[in-house]
C-alpha cells in the first residue's frame, strides 16, 4: 500500500503544480510527470494495457499538442491571475465539493464492494476486444471526423484570408 500512497501523493502534487505554475512550459512538464505517476498507479492496479495507453496518449500525444500550441502562441508566461474574489470563490466551491464527496463516500464505496462475481480479465479474454471492436471503430471514426472538421475549418480560414487580401489589392 505504501507505494500506492507515494505515487498518488506525487501525482496529485504534480497536477497541482501543473495548474499553479505560471511558466506554461514548466506546467506542461509537471502534467507529464503526473501522467507518468498515474500510469505507474494503473500498472500497480493490474491494468498494464491502460498504463501503456496512458503513457502513449496523455504523456505523449496530448503533451505534444500542448507544446505545439505554446510554440505557435509564443506566450510562455501566464498573464495576470484571476481576481481575488474569483479565486476565493473557487477555493470555497472546491472545498465544499470535497467535503460533500467525502461525506457520501461510504455509500459509493459500499456500492463498489458489492459485486464480486463474474471477474473477467482483459488478458484472459481477448475475445472481449474482438466482440466489442465496434467501440474501437466508433472512436477512430470520431477522431477522424474531428480531425477532418479541424482541417476543413483551417483551410476555409486560409481561403477567406486570401480572398480578403485579393480584395484589398
Amino acid at each position, binding site marked *: 500500500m505504501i507505494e500506492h500512497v507515494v505515487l498518488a501523493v506525487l501525482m496529485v502534487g504534480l497536477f497541482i503544480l501543473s495548474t499553479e505554475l505560471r511558466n506554461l512550459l514548466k506546467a506542461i512538464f509537471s502534467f507529464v510527470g503526473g501522467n507518468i505517476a498515474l500510469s505507474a498507479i494503473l500498472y500497480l492496479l493490474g491494468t498494464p494495457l491502460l498504463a501503456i495507453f496512458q503513457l502513449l496518449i496523455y504523456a505523449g500525444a496530448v503533451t505534444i499538442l500542448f507544446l505545439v500550441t505554446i510554440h505557435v502562441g509564443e506566450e510562455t508566461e501566464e498573464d495576470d491571475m484571476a481576481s481575488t474574489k474569483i479565486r476565493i470563490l473557487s477555493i470555497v466551491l472546491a472545498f465544499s465539493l470535497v467535503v460533500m464527496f467525502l461525506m457520501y463516500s461510504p455509500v459509493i464505496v459500499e456500492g463498489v464492494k458489492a459485486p464480486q462475481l463474474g471477474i473477467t480479465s482483459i488478458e484472459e479474454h481477448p475475445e*472481449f476486444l474482438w466482440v466489442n471492436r465496434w467501440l474501437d471503430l466508433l472512436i477512430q471514426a470520431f477522431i477522424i471526423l474531428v480531425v477532418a472538421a479541424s482541417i476543413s475549418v483551417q483551410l476555409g480560414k486560409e481561403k477567406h484570408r486570401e480572398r480578403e487580401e485579393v480584395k484589398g489589392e
Partner: protein
Amino acid sequence: MNVYEFYLCISIILIVLGLYTLISKRNLIKIVLGLEVMTLGVNLAIITMGVRVIGGTYEVDAFAQGMVAISMAIGAAVAALALSIAMNIYRHYKTFDVKKLRRLRW
C-alpha cells in the same frame, strides 16, 4: 482506509482540482489542462470501481478497462479540438487570456 476509499478520494481531489482550474484561471492553455485533469480523475474513479482484490493481488474488471480506454481516446480528441480552437483564438486576438475576448461578450 482500503484501496477503494483511497483511490476514490484521490480521484475526487483530481476532479475538484480540475474544476478549480476551470473556474479560476484565465489562460486558455491552463483551462484545457484543468479539463484534462478532470478527465484523468474520472478515469481513475472508473478504474477504482472495477478493482477487485483477489488473494492480495489487484484485478480490474474488463468492462471498466474498456470504458477507460474509450474515455482516454475521447479525452485526447477533446484536447486536440480545444487546443486548435485556442490556436485560432490566438491568431485573432493575439492572446490566450479569456478576459480579452471581448467580441463574444454581451
